[in-house]
């Protein structure tokens, strides 16, 4: 193990373990008002009238007329209004906010407001959508020729569902006017995203908007784009009231009306000649929901990794993100890749089955290695450690033997084991880092020789305060206690880019390492010194051209293998997880405990996605299971035997050899789980989540067919 990997006490441990850490809902300001949103109860409608009762003193209604700048939330595009104007596009579309000193009175007022709608016909099924938000295509080689020359052609469609982030702290924002400026504090991943959005909605100069991240109770992507929306609404309310306004979502509101993972329908067409795949045609549809938010980038990542860890010379990929009248879907750990990795892994398994070749053996024959071209004609520049990871998981689980053993089972209880091989592209997709984000970091040495890290990146639990500090301390050869790091405040920190895309350590961490290296060279005891550092793209990369989807989409990749073993009770359709094993390559872990925590937490989240987490819409487009009784996330009892191992595979361009980590563990659990269910049930499956109800359907079919 490298020295830097040795774990230290986390910077935020003491304040959190003692309950002293303050989250946004813990702040109360003088004269503070409480806000609550009135939302559309229709999935698609024209608003014909809004009847507002007489308001008691001190209460007010804030709507689109109160937006001094542009009534839109700048995310990538700006198609979502801050408050609805003439139409509403999903159940939950915000229409107005009621604000006042007593929260219960605010709720009473909300109940008495009447909205008259002229209902239009909504679209809920992504396959029936006529509005394509984003549409991309790319290819390499000659897929048509591969089809012509093929011995076999296989085609199959795979579906994945919504997933709710279920951070334990719900969304929350406080906004307050301060001498002609607007200050926003709250639970968020990306203070500068919020800054851009609020500046535009208020029509303010950038310098007159200040964003402060408070201790954030989990994000997982759910606090990447969504806080921009809530911040614009709350800022408009604070401006109109000229008082601080706080909005904290209740759990039901949070589940029903905030972004989710995009559901997908992926169709794979595979050409096989002489037992090997010679071509693949892939069609990806993502359900974008009512507004575009982050869908274009989610779709790009989904498409780029749609051929998984396999070398496919003749490849044709088409993708669309389409509009439906449902919640706008946004970022969620993995960001498009859990959907297509599910599809490719299931497809490889099914094709192997049809050819009569053992599934893992078939996949091993197609695996990429160092020097191979990527799907987008970039290159895998570094060692691909999959072979040794497969060997390790086989030793841990006895996968190959069990897989064979479980193929013929009788009796009530049946076991199954499944395996997934996967990768995750580290950092932003394509050339966004250098062309759009242009991150900047700053470190400041104080006169008493402490070193403060100034970045826009947030610690939402993933340990960034600790890992950033370790990188700087190690480089300067000073103690971790000498390094200071606070929650970012845009008035104090430069824009070092958002805290997303497994980029913080690899990209921003590398910039901090360089900054610390420079400070070390000019270190003057007792002097204040400031170093600023800009982003430099790794020199080896083939620039990515988004028009053609060609070039290096990512500088490097993290790799993983998952295996999951289940036991199904064929009488009750209950299944339990006997074991879940993950082997991960994230370069050099900057802190082993932190990386283990990321892998374990992400793996369990992935197992939830695979097995129990399902969003249930009714015919009116309303999410029916908007609470933790009905939207179930894993508890400590669900996967008693969860094993995660980290291998050491230093990345030459990352700080101390580190590369992307946070999203990887979320990506491969679903195919491993569903393959295990297939192995136990003896059928081919093609959807995730695969729930107890799905198991029941399969069992009934098997029984009916004798």
């Amino acid at each position, binding site marked *: 193990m490298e020295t830097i990997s040795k774990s230290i006490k986390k910077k935020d441990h003491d304040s959190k373990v003692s*309950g002293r850490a303050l989250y946004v809902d813990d702040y109360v300001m003088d004269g503070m008002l409480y806000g609550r949103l009135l939302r559309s109860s229709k999935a698609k409608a024209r608003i014909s009238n809004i009847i507002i009762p007489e308001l008691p003193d001190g209460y007010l209604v804030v709507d689109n007329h109160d937006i001094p700048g542009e009534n839109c939330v700048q995310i990538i595009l700006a198609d979502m209004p801050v408050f609805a104007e003439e139409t509403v596009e999903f159940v939950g579309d915000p229409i107005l906010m009621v604000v006042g000193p007593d929260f219960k009175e605010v709720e009473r007022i909300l109940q008495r407001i009447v909205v008259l709608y002229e209902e239009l016909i909504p679209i809920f099924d992504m396959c029936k959508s006529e509005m394509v938000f984003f549409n991309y295509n790319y290819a390499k080689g000659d897929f048509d020729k591969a089809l012509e020359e093929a011995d076999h052609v296989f085609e199959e469609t795979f579906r994945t569902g919504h997933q709710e982030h279920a951070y334990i702290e719900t969304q929350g924002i406080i906004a307050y006017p301060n001498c002609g400026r607007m200050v926003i504090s709250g639970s968020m991943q990306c203070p500068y995203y919020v800054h851009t959005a609020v500046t535009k909605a208020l029509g303010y100069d950038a310098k007159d908007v200040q964003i402060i991240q408070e201790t954030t109770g989990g994000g997982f992507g759910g606090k990447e784009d969504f806080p921009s929306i809530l911040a614009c609404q709350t800022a408009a309310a604070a401006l109109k009231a000229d008082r601080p306004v706080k909005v904290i979502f*209740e759990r039901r509101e949070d589940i029903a009306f905030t972004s989710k993972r995009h559901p997908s329908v992926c169709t794979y067409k595979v050409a096989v000649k002489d037992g090997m795949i010679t071509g693949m045609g892939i069609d990806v549809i993502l359900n974008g929901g009512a507004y575009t938010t982050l869908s274009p980038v989610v779709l790009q990542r989904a498409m780029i990794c749609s051929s998984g860890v396999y070398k496919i010379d003749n490849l044709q990929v088409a993708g669309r993100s389409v509009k439906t009248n449902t919640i706008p879907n946004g970022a969620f750990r993995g960001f498009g890749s859990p959907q297509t990795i599910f599809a490719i892994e299931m497809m490889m398994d099914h094709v192997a089955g049809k050819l009569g070749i053992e599934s893992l053996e078939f996949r091993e024959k197609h695996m990429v290695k160092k020097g191979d071209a990527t799907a987008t004609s970039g290159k895998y520049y570094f060692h691909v450690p999959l072979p040794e990871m497969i060997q390790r998981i086989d030793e841990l689980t006895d996968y190959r033997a069990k897989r064979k053993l479980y193929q013929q089972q009788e009796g009530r209880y049946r076991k199954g084991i499944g395996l997934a091989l996967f990768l995750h592209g580290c950092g932003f997709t394509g050339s966004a880092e250098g062309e759009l984000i242009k991150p900047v970091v700053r470190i400041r040495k104080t006169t008493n020789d402490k070193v403060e890290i100034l970045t826009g990146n947030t610690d939402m639990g993933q340990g960034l305060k600790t890992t950033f500090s370790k990188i700087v301390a190690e480089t300067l050869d000073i103690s971790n206690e000498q390094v200071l790091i606070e929650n970012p405040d845009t008035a104090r920190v430069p824009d070092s880019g958002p805290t997303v895309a497994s980029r913080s350590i690899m990209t921003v961490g590398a910039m901090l390492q360089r900054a610390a290296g420079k400070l070390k060279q000019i270190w003057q005891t007792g002097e204040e010194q400031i170093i600023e550092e800009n982003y430099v793209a790794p020199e080896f990369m083939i620039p990515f051209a988004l028009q053609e989807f060609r070039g290096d989409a990512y500088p490097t990749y993290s790799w993983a293998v998952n295996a999951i073993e289940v036991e199904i009770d064929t009488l009750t359709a209950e299944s339990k997880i006997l074991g879940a094993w993950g082997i991960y390559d994230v370069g050099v872990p900057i802190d082993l405990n932190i990386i283990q925590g990321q*892998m374990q937490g992400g793996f369990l989240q992935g197992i939830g996605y695979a097995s129990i987490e399902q969003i249930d819409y009714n015919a009116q487009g309303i999410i029916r299971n908007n609470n933790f009784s009905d939207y179930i996330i894993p508890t400590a009892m669900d996967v*008693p035997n969860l094993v995660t191992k980290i291998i050491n595979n230093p990345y030459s361009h990352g700080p101390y050899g580190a590369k992307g980590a946070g999203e990887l563990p979320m990506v491969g659990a679903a195919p491993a789980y569903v393959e295990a269910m297939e192995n136990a049930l003896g059928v081919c499956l093609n959807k995730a989540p695969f729930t107890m109800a799905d198991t029941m359907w399969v069992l009934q079919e098997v029984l009916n067919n004798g």
Partner: protein
Amino acid sequence: MVRFILNGTEVGSTALANERLLDVLRNEFRLSGVKCGCKEGECGACAVILDGRLANSCMVALGSIEGSNVLTIEGYRTTERFAVLNKAYAIVSAVQCGFCIPGMILASECILARNPNPSEAEIQTGISGNLCRCTGYKAIVAAIDTAAKEGQGLW
């Protein structure tokens, strides 16, 4: 007025009897270590120790606790037992976003108070009413196990 013992001190609340204990603790007594995660008794973020048992304070009406003993993280963090748990949680970096942690620490106390040498399965069952979305629970289970071993005699 409803009188009860809060973190060792006798207090009274004039809030309505049907108010959630969670809201009374947060709003009237400003105990912000008691977190609100769902208000439906599902997540455990608002857990307190009520007369020696773990309880979701969102599911407890103020009127039902006359004369009871309520312990929150603010009271518990002054104890020797907390010090042992604190250290055990730190060693394995069991705290990520931290929002579930006050409830999780109090759940840990209740597990160990009932059984000073719990098995892994007993720990998993003991914290199964406290949702954590960050950790996968492994580090938390390891921390409670470590605390049990290090805190011999305290529980």
